[in-house]
């Protein structure tokens, strides 16, 4: 994986086939979480809570009625409460905005998925797509962070310490002590990779946007 850098007025990164596949799958999962049709022909899943998906999507059954606050904390992070101390304001906001927000996020995720599913090592993001793409990466990171229970800056630091501990143990051919849950480790490393990609994308200054 090569981070984004400026080239000919575009942001260009390089991902090998496996990296693109892994990220495309989680992008598709976030799309499903938001109630999108499957991206591509066959749905894949990398999220550990796939069995909860039907439950998460149940709020869509009442889409004709006023939308209710999602119970899945990851989905709630994508469609947050706009007024936690004022139920009437929060409900009104959700009624007015939720469908638009879902549509915006799904469209961006689909574009991200399309980019990652192209048969090319290089990933070229034109200037006008930098912020929409960064926003799509944010949505994916929000969902992964929710699955990792990252609620505070301290939680994020603790995760990094865990990953470092596991990496060090792997390097020495030993087991991390105390052991690190492999699923958490895998999601944590994916989260770090997405963070690193997004940071490089946002840092690219194109056409004097500084």
């Amino acid at each position, binding site marked *: 994986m090569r981070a984004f850098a400026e080239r000919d007025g575009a942001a260009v990164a390089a991902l090998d086939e496996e990296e693109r596949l892994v990220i495309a799958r989680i992008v598709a999962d976030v799309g499903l979480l938001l109630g999108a049709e499957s991206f591509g022909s066959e749905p894949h899943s990398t999220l550990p809570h796939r069995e909860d998906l039907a439950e998460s999507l149940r709020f869509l059954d009442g889409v004709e009625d006023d939308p209710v606050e999602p119970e899945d904390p990851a989905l709630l992070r994508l469609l947050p409460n706009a007024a936690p101390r004022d139920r009437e304001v929060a409900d009104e906001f959700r009624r007015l905005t939720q469908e638009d927000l879902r549509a915006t996020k799904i469209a961006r995720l689909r574009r991200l998925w399309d980019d990652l599913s192209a048969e090319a090592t290089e990933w070229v993001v034109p200037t006008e797509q930098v912020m929409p793409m960064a926003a799509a990466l944010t949505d994916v990171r929000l969902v992964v962070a929710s699955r990792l229970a990252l609620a505070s*800056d301290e939680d994020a630091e603790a995760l990094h310490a865990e990953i470092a501990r596991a990496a060090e143990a792997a390097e020495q051919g030993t087991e991390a002590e105390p052991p690190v849950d492999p699923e958490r480790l895998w999601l944590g490393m994916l989260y770090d990779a997405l963070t690193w990609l997004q*940071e490089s994308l946002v840092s690219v200054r194109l056409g004097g946007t500084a």
Partner: protein
Amino acid sequence: MGTQERLDPQAGVGTRVREPWVTVVWNDPVNLMSYVTRVFQEYFGLARHEAEARMREVHEKGRSVLSSGSREQMEIHVQAMHGYGLWATLERSDG
């Protein structure tokens, strides 16, 4: 991005009416400082140093008030922030 004129249509008129609602952006462990700065620049039309100052306020104090105005205006701003993946709320400015 044409958003600045929505930010404060009262500005420059000379009469400041009391702005009853505010848009608050909250700290979270996911959003990158560089990204939040660019969102504030792009959406609120802030100069880079001003956007960075607001971002630092969010990061260090946990929240920052980015705009004030009518409830309808604040709903537009909060929706935009949610669109970017930032956690924003609206509340009455008197608390």
